[in-house]
Each structure stands twice: as structure tokens, then as C-alpha cells.
């Protein structure tokens, strides 16, 4: 449970129950459409904010540029996984069938590349996939089951049909007053402050 109060500019503040010296940790601004969000994002970016983010129910194209996000290094993780899978696969088979316990099978050589390709290939794919999924979680810091955002009821629609900008309380330029004005100026239909 949390206490709610709305100030003069209609900025709603949500404070955690029983917290002595509440201080704001997050500011949320709701937008109706992706276009409004896009413009707002550009504005916020130009203000030079660092610890801020957009929340959309689906990936909005162009928003990355609008926010100025740098390309992720995920592909390198995937490549690493794939390389490990391939070499590891080949080495495993060579060691098991030709070194550790050689079999005399159908008069064939103990070790040959062609017969080892299928397994090596599958392992390549497998480990790359682990790289992609695990990398995604790692870089996004998931899973993370608690976030201040969840304290806002409005925010529930961020995964359905509303668009949000959130500014972290630790951002150097964070200031309830100024920021809320800025965001409303950029077309936010509602602004919330989450306090601890």
C-alpha cells in the first residue's frame, strides 16, 4: 500500500507506506501515442538526461535513435557461444572416440571430420542460442522482479496501450519541479513521482 497525493500542477506523488524522509526515486510521464513519446524522448535526450528510459507496449521503431542508445555488444556474446560450441563439439568427439576409448567401427578410421559435423553443428547452434538468450538477460539485468515502476497503477498500461518516459531519481538533473514541467510541456498526459 502506498499513500497518494496530487500537487498543484497535477503531479501525482506516490509514497511508500511508512517511509521516514521520503525521497523521490522515479518520475513517470504517460503519453497517449508513440509519436508524442518519440518527440518527448528527443526532448528529454536533448536536455542531456542520463538515467532515463522509455516504456512502450511494443518496440517503437526509431525510438532508439530518438533516445540515442548505443548498439549492443550482444552479437559478440552469441559469436563466442557459437565458437565454443563448434570447437568444443569437435574436440569432444575426437577425444571420446579416438583418444580416450578408440572403437574399431566398420573398418573406418578412429576419427574423421565428416562424421563429426552434425554434432558439432548442433552444439554450435545450441551454445549460440544460450549466448543470445543469456546475453539478453545479462545486458538487461533481468530477471529483476522489483522495480519502483510497479508501484504506479497507471504504469500497468505500459505493457498494453500507453507510452511512458521514466527519469531515475539518481540522475544529476533530477528535479521534481523542473522535470514535471518539462514533461508536461512535451505532452505528457500525466506525471507521477514515486517516492521511497
Amino acid at each position, binding site marked *: 500500500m502506498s499513500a497518494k497525493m496530487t500537487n498543484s500542477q497535477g503531479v501525482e506523488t506516490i509514497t511508500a507506506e511508512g517511509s521516514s524522509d521520503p525521497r523521490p526515486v522515479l518520475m513517470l510521464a504517460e503519453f497517449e*501515442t*508513440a*509519436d508524442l513519446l518519440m518527440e518527448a524522448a528527443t526532448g528529454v535526450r536533448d536536455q542531456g538526461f542520463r538515467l532515463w*528510459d*522509455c*516504456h*512502450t*507496449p*511494443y*518496440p*517503437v*521503431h*526509431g*525510438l*532508439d535513435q530518438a*533516445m540515442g*542508445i548505443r548498439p*549492443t555488444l*550482444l*552479437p559478440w556474446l*552469441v559469436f563466442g557461444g557459437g565458437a565454443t560450441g563448434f570447437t568444443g563439439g569437435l574436440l*569432444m*568427439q575426437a577425444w*571420446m*572416440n579416438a583418444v*580416450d*576409448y578408440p*572403437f574399431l*567401427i566398420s573398418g*573406418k578410421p578412429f576419427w574423421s571430420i565428416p562424421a563429426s559435423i*552434425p*554434432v558439432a*553443428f*548442433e*552444439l554450435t*547452434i*545450441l551454445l*549460440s*542460442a544460450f549466448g*543470445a*538468450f543469456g*546475453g*539478453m*538477460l545479462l*545486458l*538487461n539485468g*533481468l*530477471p*529483476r*522482479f522489483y*522495480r519502483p*515502476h510497479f508501484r504506479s497503477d497507471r*504504469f*500497468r*498500461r*505500459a*505493457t*498494453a*496501450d500507453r507510452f*511512458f518516459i521514466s527519469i531515475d531519481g539518481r540522475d544529476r538533473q533530477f528535479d521534481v519541479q523542473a522535470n514535471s514541467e518539462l514533461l508536461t510541456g512535451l505532452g505528457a498526459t500525466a506525471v507521477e513521482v514515486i517516492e521511497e
Partner: protein
Amino acid sequence: MKQLLDKLSPIMRPELTGNAESPEIDNTAYLPDARQPLVTGENDNTTITDKVCQIVEQKPTVGWWMFFLLSLSVLGLLGVFIPFLIFWGVGTWGVNNPAGWGYAIVNFVFWVGIGHAGTLISAILFLFRQKWRTSINRAAEAMTIFAVICAGMFPGIHVGRAWFAYWMFPIPNQMELWPNFRSPLLWDVFAVGTYFTVSLLFWYMGMIPDLATLRDRAKHSVRKVAYGLLSLGWTGSNRHWHVYERAYLLLAALATPLVLSVHSVVSFDFAVSQVAGWHTTIFPPYFVAGAIFSGFAMVMTLLVPARQLFGLKDVITLKHLENMNKIIMLTGMLVGYAYAQEFFIAWYGGVKVEKFAFINRAFGQYAWAYWIMVSCNVLSPQIFWFKKMRTNITVMFIVSIFVNIGMWFERFVITVTSLANDYTPSAWDYYSPKLADVTILIGAFGLFFTLFALFCRFLPFIAMTEVRGVMAEKARLKSPPPQQGASDSASEDSAAGS
């Protein structure tokens, strides 16, 4: 068919709000300078979200219970006959000396084949930017997972000493004895294992945002917790979307060769051996085509009722169904080509035994199975040359059933006829199934539909996020269909500038 479904709808369908009672809209007509909308009716993010979530949030309907319990009882057959099998030995099956493989392997290949459409629809169509995939990929992927589960069951139980089946994994025994990596069966273990894992990741990763939606809409605390855990604390943050989309793209890029490799490896089980009728280089592409073919047919079998009963007509539109029918017809002809090619090579190669193997296949003791296969797989899809037919719900449903039957028989024909009459005629014999074969075959379907029923009930049936993405343009620039179509095609790059 339609009438039947309409009758069923009241008991199957949850109480729907808004314009869910959507009529069948024909969006398959060709527009000279535009594309037909992929989502028909007056829909926006809100209604789509409602529609999809309602399926999960409403109380389970009578119809669902009926379907679920029926599947469950069929699944019960497995519960009875697998212990029976393990206790008495594989002799309870019809396999005998020339035909060492029977229904078990046939079913294995059949289900692996079914399991291909899902990842294919998701991955390959995703790479080709086929937006129409978004309405069907979730269900298709789910189907993949469940089909592979059914498939994976069979290699385990078909061996003579099931309790030692784990020896196929590279685990050293007390003698430090390792498996034999030259055996196609071992390749299978890796291929199918990888395929299952990757498909599962792909499916789950695609679901995370939708699970988050369910979490945020959840009223009941249990659901809150369950979906909360499953959605890993997703907030739709764009910094996350950025990595997420890249990861999804890469997974798709990995899954595509994987799909092709898995059934190639399965086909190696046959192609690498030297049994006449198995030892054919055409098998990998032939099997892959067959797999896509049967996979799409099964998706069709599942979606035609589902879209009707869950009121998703304007999400899974006629256009989607028609596209799938086109693919079914194409792959069906590919398969037919492979059949013909086999005979040509058998004749052209001049190997006596192989020539006999194929003549025997078409005119020998299993000719009946062969002709069932041909008429179901090659002939029945030809009806889709006619637009009327490929947009007719009833027809496409029936054809999809035929294709499923035909593809099962394809595997039967390949596996059994080749074995029953191979090199040494004095060893020839006739393979015929026993009770255990049939019950386990049926039971597998029970398992499949049970899992699918649970999926419909508890997980987002449609990839809402992606559908929103597809509707995004429509929602954004309010413009008449033509330009909408145009911007749709160009959206990837144009969106950035706007």
C-alpha cells in the same frame, strides 16, 4: 464445418467485450496499389490486448473442459501401455526380424516433422519480414514445443532396454565407454535436443512482453505472482527492447539453419544406412519439405477451430490462412517431386535391389499405404490452385487433416516397406502392428492436445506485442488503406525519420 463451429462457439468462447463478435472479413482480394490490412475490424492496441487476454482471464468454458478432459483421457492410453511395454518388452509391438523399426520410429519422425512449422513460421518468416506471421507464430511455436515433446518420447521407449536409454548421452560408464559418434541415432539425440531447447527459448523469449501484459492485468494474486515470475520483471523499457530485438533477430537467424538441419539429421537415420529405399541422397531436402508441409497442415488444423472459437477472426484473418494454404500447396508439390525423383533415380541408377525396393513400394505388399500417401500428400493439396477453395474454411480444414494422415503414411511407407523386403529375400516378412502400437500412436495425440489445451488456457495465444507493432503504423499515421499499405512496407526505415 463453419456452421458446426458457429454452433460450438457459444460454449467454447469466453464472454467477449467490444467488437469481438467480428464477422468473417475477406481481406484476401488483390489491391493493385496496396496491401490488405493484416488485422481487420476496428481494432487498436486496447481491443487487441483485451481480446487476447480475455481468453486467459475468463473462467474456463464448458467447451474447454470437454476438450481438455477428452485429450487427457486419450493421454491416459500412454499411461497404461507404456508401463505395459516396459514390463513385457518391445515384443508387445509388431516389430519383427526384417522390420526392426515400426510405429515408434514412424511416429517419431512424424512428430518431429510437425514440430517444424512453428520455428519455421517464426524464424524464417521473421527474417523475410513477413508480417502476417505475427498472428500465428505464437500458437505455431507452442505446437512445435508440444510436437517435439511427443517426438522425444519415442526414441526413449522404442529401445529394447529403455532403462539404459541414457547411454546415448555422452556420459562415461564405469569402463569409460563413450557413445559412438558415427551413429545417426546419436546425431539425432543432439539435433532433437538442440532443436527442443532452442525452440523453447525462442518461444519463451517471444512471450516475455506478453506475459508482462498478463501480469499487469492480473487480478488474482496467484496469477500476479506466476506471471510476475515468468515475465522476469519486464517493463517494456526501450533500452531492453533494443537488446531484446537484437537477441530475437539472432535467435531467429540461428533457428533457421537449425530447422533445416534437424530434419536433415533425422533423415540421416535412413539415408546413412544402406537399406535399399533408405540409402538416398535426396532425403534431407525431401524430409525438410515434408516437415514444413506437415507442420503447416497441423497449424491449420489447430488454428481454424481456434480462431473461430476464441473470436480471433480479425487477428488470424483469411489472408493468414490463405498464405498458409499457398505454402502447403507448394511444399506438397515439392514432396511429390521427391517421390517422383526417387523412382527416377532408382531406375536411372540401375541398382537391381533399389529398383525392386521402389517397385515393391508402389505395387508390393504395402501398395495400399503408398497410394494413401500419394493421394493425401500430392493430390489433395492441388485443390488450392483455386482461390475459392483456399479461402474456404471447411475445405482447408479437411485438406489439412488429409495432409496429416498422408505424412504419417509417408514415414510408414519409408520405414516399413524398405525393411520388410530388403537385400536377402529369404529374410522377408510382413510387418503388422499390434495393439500397443496403435494405442501409443493415439496416446501421443492425447499428449499433444492436452498440452495445447493448457497453452490456450494459461498463455497468450497471440503475440500481442508483435500485432501491436504491425498495427502501429495504422495507429500512428491516420491514413486510408492504400498509403497505409505503402507505409507498412516501408515502415522499417521510414519510421526512423518521422
